[in-house]
């Protein structure tokens, strides 16, 4: 039998639960438009009768003790979050690419009103200039009075200038893209990584204190969503025992591949955030390929690296035979000279936050790559030191002076390579900045890299070189046809011409153009027969040119054919090929963003606030509150009857 005042307790729990629900409804309504907000609900359950299972449990009609609001939780699906972030990374990659490609496309085409009609037309600027040059040559051969060597020279100058401007614009886009990557991408991603680690810390503290910290989780989720735009990430939550039978979820974030699975290279994963520890991205540019070999291309290679985890920015210093973990922390480079009679050098870079275990791994790798040291030295982590042990009585010394070390021995602490970034805008930027499509490809192999900025600038170089060599050879009058170059790299030298440096020979004044190569009779002149100009037109319009890749890949001369056709077709191919590339990336980007929208819709279906839902909830919980209050009145009346009116029957 329940106690006399049980009803009041039940009514009170109902009122409390209804108020909690009403408050949460209010919270949901007020945050309906808050970015990243996840719909919340009150976790409530019925309280069983207290006698259940007890020694004095009574039988018969028993009643529970009302309702308990045990907490609040979020309506969120971790699977959809993961899907969303994977897709966001894919979308981030193509978005980064398409923006730069649009800029590139604008360089090659312009909209203008054609002189022949009032209609505006899309003009391929390079082809247009090239065709003007040919027209001037043609006009001279047919004896048109307005055509002369100087008009040809002016047109050639315009063509060279157009090539210069186009090549420089491509360079500008490259430097803009690098600065976008570095100033906004890398810095923003590092800020996000740091703030995620900070949220982890705050959430853990709040949860230990008994709070749910739902709003902090929302902000952390938002930061994770934003981070996934830059790199593909995999988020893992592991329950951690905090004593008294309670657990909190500890979150770690690692790099993921394009399918959303943790990225593993040689069994190693790349952790961005682990609890409150975090790593840091850095971007650098140098003239080295990913394997450390020198890049012979005309541009610098961009490298993105990931540091080890840190929560306070620890780093290392070198003592004789050991490496310690010092304070204060600075980024440093140390040089280890290890060896016996024939000293060997290994250079190790230790960015801020490199873990000792990671350092050991890299030192071991470096030693194993050095045939003179391999197998003779072993390393061990001893406390905060990395100790070196030599075998066979070898002596060991470590130097901090960078003396005559081969840069090829430089190892990065992180071990991460550009290729490990499989998705996200970082990957997009790297492809644009570093990849050159067919120019990266060895002869006989299929092209696997994207046509980035490098492809187009190298294609322009190839065209400029072929243009110069075709025209120069026709104009030459000596046996090697190289004595009267029209196009040069610096006004005199015809070798090493690129699109950026192509310019007219400083010797090109009137009379420099070879009009005819037939030796005239004594006292005669064939300078007005223009037979050589006709030959030049033939070389420029009808002769098949073979545009080959000129740079080396991994020290191998590729020599593969990039384009085979007339120069006129080569000029036109630049903008049409770029158009196709843009169109293809655009289509992938559209698909990616529509997939992302679909996944976002699915996520919003669960997590976002519907005003209608909340209005219904409000009515419902308001009614529940009224009903519980009414019940309390009923119980009160009941008690009134029992206490004041019972047993007074028959009193006068």
């Amino acid at each position: 039998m329940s106690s006399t005042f049980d009803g009041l307790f039940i009514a009170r729990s109902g009122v409390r639960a209804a108020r909690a629900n009403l408050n949460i409804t209010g919270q949901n309504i007020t945050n309906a438009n808050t970015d990243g907000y996840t719909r919340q609900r009150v976790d409530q359950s019925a309280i069983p009768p207290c006698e259940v299972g007890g020694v004095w449990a009574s039988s018969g009609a028993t009643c529970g003790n009302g309702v308990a609001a045990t907490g609040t939780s979020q309506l969120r699906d971790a699977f959809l979050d993961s899907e969303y972030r994977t897709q966001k990374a894919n979308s981030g990659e193509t978005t980064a690419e398409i923006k730069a490609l649009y800029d590139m496309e604008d360089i090659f085409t312009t909209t203008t009103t054609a002189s022949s009609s009032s209609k505006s037309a899309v003009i391929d600027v390079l082809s247009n200039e090239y065709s003007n040059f040919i027209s001037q040559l043609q006009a001279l051969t047919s004896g048109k009075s307005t055509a002369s060597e100087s008009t040809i020279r002016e047109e050639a100058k315009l063509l060279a200038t157009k090539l210069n401007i186009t090549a420089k614009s491509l360079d500008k886009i490259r430097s803009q893209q690098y600065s976008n990557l570095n100033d906004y991408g890398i810095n923003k991603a590092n800020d996000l990584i740091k703030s995620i680690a900070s949220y982890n810390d705050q959430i853990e503290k709040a949860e230990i204190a008994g709070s749910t910290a739902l709003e902090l989780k929302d902000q952390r989720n938002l930061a994770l969503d934003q981070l996934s735009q830059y790199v593909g990430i995999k988020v893992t939550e592991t329950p951690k025992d905090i004593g008294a039978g309670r657990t909190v979820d500890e979150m770690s974030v690692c790099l993921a591949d394009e399918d959303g699975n943790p990225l593993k290279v040689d069994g190693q994963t790349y952790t961005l955030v682990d609890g409150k520890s975090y790593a840091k991205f850095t971007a650098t540019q140098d003239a080295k390929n990913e394997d450390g070999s020198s890049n012979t291309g005309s541009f610098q290679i961009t490298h993105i690296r990931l540091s080890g985890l840190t929560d306070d920015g620890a780093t290392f210093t070198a003592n004789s035979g050991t490496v310690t973990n010092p304070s204060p922390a600075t980024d440093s480079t140390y040089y280890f000279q290890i060896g016996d009679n024939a000293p060997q050098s290994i250079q190790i870079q230790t960015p801020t936050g490199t873990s000792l275990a990671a350092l050991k791994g890299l030192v071991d790798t470096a030693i194993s790559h050095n045939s003179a040291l391999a197998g003779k030295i072993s390393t061990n982590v001893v406390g905060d030191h990395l100790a070196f042990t030599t075998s066979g009585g070898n002596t060991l010394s470590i130097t901090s002076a960078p003396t005559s070390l081969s840069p090829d021995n430089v190892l990065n602490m992180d071990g991460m390579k550009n290729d490990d970034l499989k998705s996200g805008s970082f990957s997009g930027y790297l492809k644009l900045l570093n990849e050159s499509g067919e120019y990266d490809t060895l002869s006989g192999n299929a092209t696997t890299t994207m046509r980035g900025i490098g492809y187009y600038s190298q294609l322009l170089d190839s065209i400029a070189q072929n243009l110069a060599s075709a025209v120069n050879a026709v104009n030459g009058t000596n046996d090697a046809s190289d004595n009267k170059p029209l196009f040069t790299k610096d006004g005199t030298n015809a070798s090493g011409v690129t699109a950026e440096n192509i310019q007219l020979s400083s010797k090109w004044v009137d009379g420099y153009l070879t009009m005819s190569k037939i030796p005239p009779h004594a006292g005669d002149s064939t300078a007005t027969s223009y037979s050589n100009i006709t030959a030049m037109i033939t070389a420029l319009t009808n002769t098949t040119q073979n545009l080959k890749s000129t740079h080396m890949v991994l020290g191998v001369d590729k020599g593969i054919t990039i384009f085979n056709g007339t120069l006129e077709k080569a000029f036109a191919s630049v903008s049409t090929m770029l158009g196709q590339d843009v169109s293809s990336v655009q289509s992938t980007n559209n698909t990616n963003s529509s997939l992302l929208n679909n996944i976002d819709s699915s996520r919003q279906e669960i997590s976002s606030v519907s005003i209608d839902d909340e209005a219904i909830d409000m009515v419902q919980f308001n009614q529940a509150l009224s009903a519980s209050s009414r019940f309390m009145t009923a119980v009160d009346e009941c008690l009134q009857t029992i206490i004041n009116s019972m047993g007074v029957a028959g009193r006068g």
Partner: protein
Amino acid sequence: MRITTQMMMSRYKRDVSDAFASMNTAMQHAYDYRAFDKPSDDPLAAAQTFEVHWQMSENADYTNNIQNMDGFTKTADTILINVNSILSDTGNNNALKTIIQNINGGMNEGNRADAAASLTTIRDSIISKMNAKYGDSYIFGGSNSGSAPFQMINNELYYRGINVDTGVNINGASATVGYTDVNNHANSLQINFGKDIGAKLNNYKIEIASPAGALGAQVSGGTIKISIPSSTTKADLQKFLNGSTNGANGQTFLKDLQDGGVTGLTSTSGITISGLPDNGTDLVTPLGAPTASSISNVVDLASLANENVYVDIGLGITSTNGKIDDQSAFDSAMPGIKYLGYGTKTITNDDGTKTVPCNICSVLTKIADCLNKSKGESNTAVIKDVSQYIDSLNQSQTSLQSKQAELGEKMSFLSDAASYTSDMKISLSDKDNNVEYLDYTDAVENFYTQMYCYNASLKVGGQILQQSLMDYLK
């Protein structure tokens, strides 16, 4: 499916933005009619468009060239008709045919001088017509259209400094000498000896001796053998030939020549090598089996009369070994001697064989000479003298007419080419319209459709966005 306010809002935003973007594009297309704004909008159409642009520009070049060539050949044709009519004219007493008829009919000595003067006038009038210009170019200059081709010197006709009868170049002699070039190919260079040196060395032969010896020259049996050590450049060779440097024996080329019996030379400083590169670094290596080339001031008149100057008029110009293929371009060269005739021929009559010129003007000169020299001669003798030239004159006139007919064929060929390029212009313009531009009706209709879609989406938005259950709760 649960639809939330946020979902609806964000989807609506996206859709309205898409509808607006589509309307904007359609609006732009409704006033510029372009099928694409950037190559990436439609890569295939862009590629076709750029190809058509190129073809149109090429076609415009060809049209220009054909127009110029047309004017050029038409002017030439008019001049040739004129020359021909001078040759055939019988209109007055000073007309050529009349004069010849009068000569054949017998004329007194006083009239002979008048007739000779008239013939000279007729000849000079032909020469001045043949020196006509079209624009800045001398029409009948062949490969040299920069200066007047015909010139009378000492009563002889010269075409670009070359005697039209004998082929003798008054500007000097030259020799074409074989050597091995830097690419290890057999090549030849032309040594020009100038007027005075050429006259002294005329009919000598010259060769680069093989195997190469020390720098120097030897004359034996009418052949000048030039010995050059390895690593001699064209510039070195020229310096030795013009006396700037001495040979290995310490003496000049002039001395070598004098030692070999050449007389009358005082200097070799005028000798030049044709096409000598500015840097002069090309190596000259003797051929394995050298052949001696003649130093001659006689030019091959036939090759001079058949010079070509090619102009690209869209016949698919091609070249072989750096030379334009004949059928692939229009030959605009009209060497004057091709029309007026050149060289000489031998005729046989009662007095034996005689050499008569083929050139119309030279023939006229000869006839005038006959008349001028005929003082005291009988009419019969004069008629006999003149008649041997009259045959040649008639033949040359026939040849001129046939060459004129060839020119007519060229003109009709140009006219065909002109109508082809003009048809091509229309067809390319059609093609351009098809690939680059939208159909006007389609563009306007599409704009109205997009505008309707956009308006509809705004209307629907107005209906649904404001509504929620809140509006109906009391």
